[in-house]
């Protein structure tokens, strides 16, 4: 899968040339996140601890409103934990930064920058020379197979293309971890499948840690090494499932017995949650 292009650039531009295996450890340590206070108090995340090893692909799966985005945002640095702390490579997270790449559900490319400029923006902020930024951007455009549209504006692209550019933009900073919040949620089923496969290719090429939020069970199983299932009110992780499916993954696996068994397990956890929530509302 190594194309050579990316690994060459890794050598040239990667700030730490040390082993990729050393980078991208995430520790979520007894994190609680509370919004509001008094009668409007809302415990979005309660005393949650998660450890993610470098290079792991972890999906957070859970119903709407259970606190998935909030938890992810605490790793990104947009939300400060009310208690506990988040560490990436043993550094406590206090604010957003380029060491953590972020891909959003809504299209978040800068509409006034061309595709090329969007990808070159991170390296530019990091202080690379214009020609270095250009060549980084070109490399990543080649990687996602969109060199031909370098000069297009995001508004000219399909949703799937925009998200590919979004991923490339996040990776162009060579971040320690890639944080993705339902990045394919707005795409149609067909595009979604293609995007999942291409994400896995990129991931295997980079060996980067990915924390991926979704509420789609199939998506989580197809992508992840590990699935964390969250429950709502208060948000917390109720199950940590290992996905033992072999890699590279292919869409045909969706009918394999292991896949189906995993899916049943996920669904039963989620159903138990929904039932609980339903009964709580009923009483």
């Amino acid at each position, binding site marked *: 899968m190594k194309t050579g292009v990316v690994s060459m650039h890794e050598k040239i531009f990667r700030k730490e040339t040390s082993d990729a295996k050393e980078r991208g450890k995430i520790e979520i340590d007894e994190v609680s996140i509370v919004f509001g206070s008094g009668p409007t108090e809302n415990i979005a995340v309660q005393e949650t601890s998660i450890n993610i090893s470098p290079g792991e692909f972890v999906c957070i799966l859970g119903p709407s409103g259970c606190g998935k985005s909030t938890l992810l945002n605490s790793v990104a640095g947009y939300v400060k934990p009310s208690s506990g702390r988040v560490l990436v490579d043993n550094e406590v997270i206090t604010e957003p930064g380029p060491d953590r790449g972020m891909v959003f559900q809504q299209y978040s490319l800068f509409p006034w920058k061309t595709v090329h400029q969007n990808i070159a923006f991170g390296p530019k902020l990091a202080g690379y020379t214009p*020609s270095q930024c250009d060549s980084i951007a*070109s490399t990543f455009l080649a990687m996602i197979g969109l060199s031909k549209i370098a000069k297009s504006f995001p508004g000219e692209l399909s949703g799937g293309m925009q998200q590919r550019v979004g991923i490339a933009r996040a990776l162009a900073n060579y971040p320690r971890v890639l944080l993705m919040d339902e990045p394919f949620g707005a795409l149609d089923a067909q595009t979604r499948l293609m995007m999942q496969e291409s994400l896995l290719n990129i991931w295997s090429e980079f060996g980067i840690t990915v924390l991926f939020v979704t509420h789609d069970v199939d998506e989580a199983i197809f992508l992840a090494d590990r699935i964390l299932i969250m429950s709502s009110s208060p948000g917390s992780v109720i199950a940590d499932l290992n996905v033992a499916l072999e890699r590279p993954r292919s869409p045909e696996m969706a009918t394999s017995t292991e896949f189906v068994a995993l899916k049943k397990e996920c669904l039963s956890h989620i159903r138990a949650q929904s039932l609980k929530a339903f009964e709580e509302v009923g009483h």
Partner: protein
Amino acid sequence: MNGAVLEKIANNDAETVNDSAVGGLKSAGKNSPDSAVIQSVTNTDSENFSFKDFVLSSLKNEKLQTISVGIVSLSFGILIWHLATLYNFNYFINFENVPSPTTVGAAFLSHLGDAEFYKHILISMRRILFAYSIAVVLGVTIGVLVGRSRIARAAVLPYIEVIRPIPAVAWIPLAILMWPTEESSIVYITFLGALFPIILNTIHGVKETPEVLVRAAVSLGAKKMEVFWHVVLPAALPSIAAGLSIGMGISWFSLLAGEIISGQYGIGYFTWDAYSMINYPDIVVGMLIIGGLGTLSTYLIGLMMRPALRWKKFQR
């Protein structure tokens, strides 16, 4: 080195795609003149392709159509004006003292060699340039501050709310009392007219900045100023551009009010002076000059903003 080569390849690719996209557009184009020409070429033996066909197919071209309808409509208006003055139309509205299009045209031509006339125009334009430039710088700065900072908003918004509803024209008496010279009071009024639309549109634009884009920039390593230059300002630009156009219109309006009431030069003074001197054709000459300059300056503002808003037409 390899990077540069890669980049070249990427750029070349992009150009080919652009070319083919343009080609595609052209071939799929609705340009009727083109297709008419193509037809005439394929039917080499027929002599059916005539000038009349060409004119008809040209008329189908949207741009030409817009322009020709505009010209016809304007000519019709001038004709009505001409007839009304020719027959001294007087029914509720009185055309007896209204100069005819031809006398206005003649008056205009006679002014072309008159240095005084140009002086009026240049002085008005200088006032606009001066007052408007200050309004743009101050308006955009205040707008951005108010839009981005809660403290600035709390401090400035009360002033805006109180002063905004007062038309610039209502400031004239006080402006004359406040400012040392007539010139400065006219410039002040012109400035005020442009200021508020620019402030309000800038605030609006800044507030419209999608939060997700700010988050994206911050996670790519942008600091406060970089977020401002790369996200907030471009996001606000369409709205700011609208404010600049509106502000230009209102600054002309305010300038003329100021020039009519005080001053010895300027196109507003010229127009009002023509009325006092019972020189009726010059009233209309002055009006048309004002209209022309107003349109021209608003158009120029649009033209200057266009490159920065090129991305906008792809937005859905």
